[in-house]
């Protein structure tokens, strides 16, 4: 068992011990009378467990993240430049070093060699590659003496690091344990301390989500900057064609893709907004409680279908059905030759629209339910019919919220991937014909990054620039939508 897992188990045992000791001690300082305690015994225990485990585990986590990086940096500086073969990088050499080092640890743990024997290894006398292959660690080429030396260095430093880790973290846990158990007296405000700990946990969770977003933006940003170093930004934003090829003179313009994205999204919204809105009006204004209890969850099942299933539906059902109507010449239903393949803007748009229906209807339904009943009563009391009431009072009152819902749906449509991958086709072009295949930003990101790719060419890096643009686009829509929805929410408070 590794040092780290032993350490974690030790900390957890200590924390459990602290829990029982602290609650017992708290009761005994109160003379056995629970009512004299400031907090329930459980809080004294939790407080002790918290102070024993959390600082120690936190430092351990940071240590585990930081140590390999530091060791690697130290070892890297010892690797001579001549070791790096033509066309390779220092990263590849380093991964060899790591593999040799890990392999030697395995050799020891299997008992093939002792610790001191591995330290005396020499490339001249032992075939290290064969030795390591024997324990399941595959090395690409014969191990050079410098690599072996670096690996030994790596092992030594890792070992020292682990020793220090134990030497620092074990006392930390013990100090936390001792202090918190000693503090567990009747007057100690354990409840407040534990609740502050919980608050810290909540803050951590919230900031984690925000930090992740920032991290995503930055990773996209750096790759996009790399892309714009290799490819003119004027072509990306203002060029007219998308024609990647791996000879290096690609046209990589976002505009044809953006056109496809927007065109498909608009068709999707044309489908989803009226259907979703009408469904919402029926559910919130007309349906009785029994119909509502049955129909609303059923409609929301649509929202739970994985988008790849919608994609299959587009490819296998909707696309061929559209071809039967608009294509096939004499054999088709209308005798037209307008549509040749199942993948088309209309196919993807229709299916995406179906996907968005529950999204629009569910949000609009909530928004219409938020319109106060007193407004409906007022309108009905003036002799308006339910329909007039909906058209002239409920919908206008709910309109900002509905607009917000539609914008949220639009941003989902723009970011949707699987339906367009399967349903929209792969041809980037400007065309107003909805029966032609077109492509979107998301499908191009998928196709540029799948398969055998080299992460240094503009043809691959363009995916990040596309992704960033998409992100900015949907973020903008979401911000506007949320702003509108929030403004509307305040209206009735």
């Amino acid at each position, binding site marked *: 068992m590794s040092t780290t897992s032993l350490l974690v188990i030790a900390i957890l045992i200590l924390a459990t011990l602290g829990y029982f000791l602290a609650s017992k001690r708290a009761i005994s300082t109160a003379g056995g009378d629970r009512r004299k305690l400031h907090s329930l015994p459980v809080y004294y225990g939790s407080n002790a467990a918290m102070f024993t485990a959390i600082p120690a585990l936190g430092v351990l986590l940071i240590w585990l993240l930081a140590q390999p990086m530091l060791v690697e940096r130290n070892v890297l500086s010892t690797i001579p430049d001549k070791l790096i073969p033509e066309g390779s990088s220092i990263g590849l050499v380093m991964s060899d070093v790591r593999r040799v080092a890990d392999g030697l640890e395995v050799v020891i743990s299997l008992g093939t060699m002792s610790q001191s024997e591995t330290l005396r290894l020499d490339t001249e006398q032992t075939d290290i590659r064969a030795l390591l292959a024997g324990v399941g660690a595959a090395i690409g080429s014969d191990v050079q003496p410098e690599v072996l030396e670096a690996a030994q260095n790596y092992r030594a430093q890792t070992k020292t690091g682990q020793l220090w880790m134990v030497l620092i973290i074990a006392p930390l846990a013990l100090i936390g344990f001792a202090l918190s158990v000693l503090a567990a007296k009747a007057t100690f405000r354990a409840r407040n301390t534990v609740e502050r700990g919980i608050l810290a946990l909540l803050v951590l969770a919230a900031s984690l989500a925000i930090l992740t977003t920032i991290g995503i933006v930055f990773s996209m940003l750096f790759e996009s900057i790399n892309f714009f170093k290799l490819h003119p930004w004027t072509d990306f934003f203002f060029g007219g064609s998308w024609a990647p090829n791996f000879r290096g003179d690609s046209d990589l313009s976002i505009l044809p893709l953006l056109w496809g994205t927007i065109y498909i999204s608009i068709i999707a919204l044309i489908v989803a907004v009226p259907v979703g809105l009408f469904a919402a009006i029926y559910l919130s204004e007309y349906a009785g409680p029994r119909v509502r209890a049955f129909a609303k969850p059923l409609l929301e099942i649509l929202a739970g279908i994985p988008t790849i299933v919608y994609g299959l539906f587009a490819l296998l059902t909707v696309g061929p059905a559209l071809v039967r109507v608009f294509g096939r010449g004499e054999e088709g239903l209308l005798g037209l030759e307008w549509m040749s393949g199942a993948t088309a803007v209309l196919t993807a748009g229709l299916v995406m629209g179906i996907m968005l229906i529950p999204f629009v209807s569910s949000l609009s339904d909530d928004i219409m339910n938020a319109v106060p009943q*007193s*407004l409906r009563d007022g309108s009905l*009391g*003036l*002799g308006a019919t339910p329909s*007039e009431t909906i058209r*002239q009072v409920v919908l206008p009152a709910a309109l900002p919220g509905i607009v917000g819902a539609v914008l949220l749906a639009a941003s989902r449509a723009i970011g949707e991937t699987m339906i367009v991958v399967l349903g929209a086709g792969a041809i980037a072009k400007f065309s107003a014909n909805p029966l032609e295949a077109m492509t979107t930003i998301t499908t191009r990101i998928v196709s540029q990054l799948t398969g055998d790719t080299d992460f240094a060419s503009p043809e691959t890096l363009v995916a990040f620039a596309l992704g960033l643009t998409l992100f900015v686009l949907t973020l903008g829509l979401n911000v506007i939508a949320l702003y509108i929805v929030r403004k509307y929410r305040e209206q009735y408070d």
Partner: protein
Amino acid sequence: MNDKNIMESHMGTTAIKISARDVQVYYGDNYAIKDVSIDIEDKTVTAFIGPSGCGKSTFLRCLNRMNDTIDICKVTGSIRIDDEDIYDRRVDPVQLRAKVGMVFQKPNPFPKSIYDNVAYGPRIHGLAQNKADLDDIVESALRRGAIWNEVKDRLQSPGTGLSGGQQQRLCIARAVATEPEVLLMDEPCSALDPIATAQVEELIDELRQSFSVVIVTHSMQQAARVSQKTAFFHLGNMVEYGETGQIFTTPQDPRTESYITGRIG
């Protein structure tokens, strides 16, 4: 004594506007109104008083069939307005509500301009021939709602931006604009401050010239101030109905006396 005779003889000349017989209302399993029979006179303010949950608002809502909007509510018995049974199959509740206007407890202006709030009913019922006609209707309704002078310069600003008392008078003007024959008011002053209450009460007194007004109120002082007839409801029964002065000075039923002297509530 003399005053009372004059009043009674005056009352005697007015016609019966609403006549309810043996009205029962059930909310699901809850028996909310039991055997209520009442004759409400035209051009009179009739007050319904009684403790909370006694059914006075429920009965009021029967008079314009607002209870139809509640699924579990069932009404039996007969309610006749101008000798026409309003629960008859041939009666369209929507038409009925145009004739029997309603003002609610909480001011509920639509999130529209002041003008559109008042023009709402006339537009729906096609009361105006043209824009100028509609302008006249809106102005006269706002005048009768005693709010014209306060809002005449900002007819296009939202009705929700007015103060509570102004909103309630706007709602009254809105109800008046459809030219109803009966005006039902469900605790119209309970959300208002004393000054706004006084304004609305004054307004109710003026409205009596043109309509039969039925008002539900928790305030006995208010009932005494604005109404000519008072009905006391208790636990779903109408206990006593008569001249306001008589109800408050010489109630016939011991329950009425207990209520107005504050012993039950």
